[in-house]
């Protein structure tokens, strides 16, 4: 290593004693100690002073901790709504170096699906190293570092904290770290709203807020009472239908119908007089069916006209066939290059009518066949 670099040199410490007589060094040192002792009667209130006392008479006097101080994590819940911010996403459990966090995510008792809340949240305070990683990594700003340092207890088991003991209100946290909360408040509250929407029943409400839980339960009960009345008014669509699985043909018919409906929304008022070359009988039946459908639509609840009323496979195939026929006819009629969808779109009512006509035709055929057999 070179002795002289451009940024500094090597200096050999000078051991040479100063011109002090024997014993003077001790006196010099005593002078230093005397200065400190004399200065200790005044208070040292500034970092730039080296004399003076800055004793804090703990426990009568306590120093305020800086905002960033971290010791032991706590969970936050919103004062207003009573909901806990924690969604049970396991990020803090994954990152915890000594692995002292144990989470159980909440499940909807009715459907069995996971709910963004935590039923149990355990932190072993006696092994927690207060590194702050859980607070750093939490995407929902629900676990934060507290400022408590007076945790001594003779009961080791009492240091395993459960969710009820870890819950703190957000107002508590703004009391100890206002700046840190202000940075993340907007995002955290927005995410909380999203979580609340997906939490059924009273899941996610802090357990200590018993009044809020009672109030919410009453609210839900009232809503449940009102719901059956509302349900009776709605269209008598097959209640099991939405959940039932559709066969591929039914799916195709539904898709064609949906496409027709979407095009209907955006397209110009469908010209019922679109030059679609349907066979005369089909056109007449289609017109009749269209009128009937319009009448039905006026009176009934807004149940989707394209609701997958359970079509038998044969009928569905017939409907699909009719729709394709209509589309092809439209394509041939109009020389302009029009896609099948737009062709269908230009004659939506006609397509619907065509399908209805196909259904009617099929039913009529079946009836005729039965009658024919009976005869």
């Amino acid at each position: 290593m070179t002795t002289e670099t451009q940024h500094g040199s090597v200096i050999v410490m000078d051991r040479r004693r100063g011109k002090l007589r024997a014993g003077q060094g001790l006196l010099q040192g005593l002078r230093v100690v005397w200065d400190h002792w004399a200065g200790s009667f005044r208070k040292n209130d500034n970092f730039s002073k080296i004399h003076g006392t800055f004793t804090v008479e703990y426990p009568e006097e306590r120093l305020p901790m800086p905002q960033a101080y971290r010791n032991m994590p706590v969970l936050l819940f919103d004062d207003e709504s009573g909901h806990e911010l924690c969604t049970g996403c396991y990020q803090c459990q994954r990152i915890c170096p000594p692995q002292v966090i144990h989470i159980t995510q909440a499940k909807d008792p009715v459907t069995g699906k996971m709910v963004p809340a935590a039923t149990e949240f355990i932190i072993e305070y006696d092994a927690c190293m207060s590194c702050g990683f859980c607070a750093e990594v939490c995407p929902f700003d629900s676990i934060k570092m507290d400022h408590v340092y007076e945790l001594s207890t003779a009961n080791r088991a009492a240091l395993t904290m459960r969710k009820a003991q870890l819950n703190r209100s957000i107002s508590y946290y703004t009391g100890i770290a206002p700046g840190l909360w202000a940075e993340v408040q907007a995002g955290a509250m927005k995410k909380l709203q999203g979580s609340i929407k997906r939490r059924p029943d009273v899941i996610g409400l802090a357990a200590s807020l018993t009044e809020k839980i009672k109030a919410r339960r009453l609210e839900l009960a009232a809503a449940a009472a009102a719901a059956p009345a509302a349900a009776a008014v709605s269209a008598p669509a097959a209640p099991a239908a939405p959940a039932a699985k559709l066969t591929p043909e039914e799916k195709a018919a539904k898709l064609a119908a949906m496409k027709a409906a979407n095009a209907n929304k955006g397209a110009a008022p469908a010209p019922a007089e679109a030059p679609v070359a349907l066979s005369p009988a089909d056109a007449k039946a289609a017109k009749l069916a269209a009128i009937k459908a319009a009448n039905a639509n006026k009176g009934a609840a807004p149940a989707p006209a394209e609701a997958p009323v359970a079509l038998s496979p044969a009928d569905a195939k017939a409907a699909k066939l009719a729709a394709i026929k209509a589309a092809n006819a439209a394509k041939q009629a109009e020389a302009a290059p029009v896609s099948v969808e737009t062709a269908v779109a230009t004659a939506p009512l006609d397509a619907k009518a065509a399908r209805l006509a196909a259904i009617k035709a099929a039913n009529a055929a079946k009836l005729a066949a039965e009658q024919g057999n009976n005869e």
Partner: protein
Amino acid sequence: MLKTEELQINIGPQHPSTHGVFRMLVTVDGETVTDLKPVFGYLHRNHEQIAEVNTYLQNMPYTDRLDYFNAMANNHAYAMAVEKLVGIEVPERAEYIRVLMVELTRILNHAGALGFLINDMGAWQTQLAFGMREREKILDLFESVSGARLMCNYFRFGGVARDLTADFMPRLKDLLVAMPAFIDEMERLLRENEILLQRSEGIGILPKDLALAYSVTGPVLRGSGVAYDIRRAEPYSIYDRLDFDVPVGSVGDVYDRILVRIEEMRQSKRIIEQVIAQLPDAQGGHINPKARQNVRPPVGDVYARVETPKGELGFYLVSDGSSRPYRYKVRAPSFINLTPLGDMCRGYKVADMVVILGSIDIVMGEVDR
């Protein structure tokens, strides 16, 4: 002539002067030490195997606990090692903040180490109390920026965890006003003190060639006259832009090491002043925004080292491509600096042996890991 026998006595592991749980098997002939064997492992926590089970980020708080006196320096070495392995760049402002923290650590380590050495000499806690007062100021600064006084956990891969707070700079500037007064006062108390000179001049001499052969580093090596400082020998971070001198001793005894440590505090203050002046112009933020903390380094190995206040702290990492280290080795300065303890103490008195151990400045968290 009376028939005498050599006596083997056990100093430690529970002993107020052994700087932690440290045991020395001393063979004495009367009051003179003829042989000394250091025995440690009482604080062995298997840190290296814990690190193989944790991911790279989860290891960061554990590095705090190695040399628990200087948490920031340990974090720095580990962060540098992982950044070198993965190839993460550190923005300029983050480098300046890092150097600031590490140099503050150097001041507080030397303030404490000299205090403990004077305590070992029998002067009780006079200098230690003065040194602790300055340490408290610096620890308050650490607390306001990282959240904890000792176990800072402040460095991340690609920078530091949080930027400096608004009240950090004014307090730091106040502290730097007090610093020359503190160091000068310490010199006045110690440098010409007859008792200290008697207890430390010519005690525990480690000659230059032996110092290098024993692989010692830090103030012990520089006290023996070898001008090897990693910040100059293999500059890392932004040390190649900063002006500072490297103090060395001439004889290699305890007195030289005291003088070297006092001068290093002055140089650290000089570095901090330069950092404060250059910090406003530094580019970038407090962390590289593209750096992922859950790193998955490519297969390979790396060795990164820093000049901590006690010597060379190095991390040797071997990665197998997963998110956990395959091998994680800590090259601890205090551990290796203990190698010449036996040779340094031979021929001196038992009381000198305590002083020599104090002058090496060990911390058992590092020695035992």
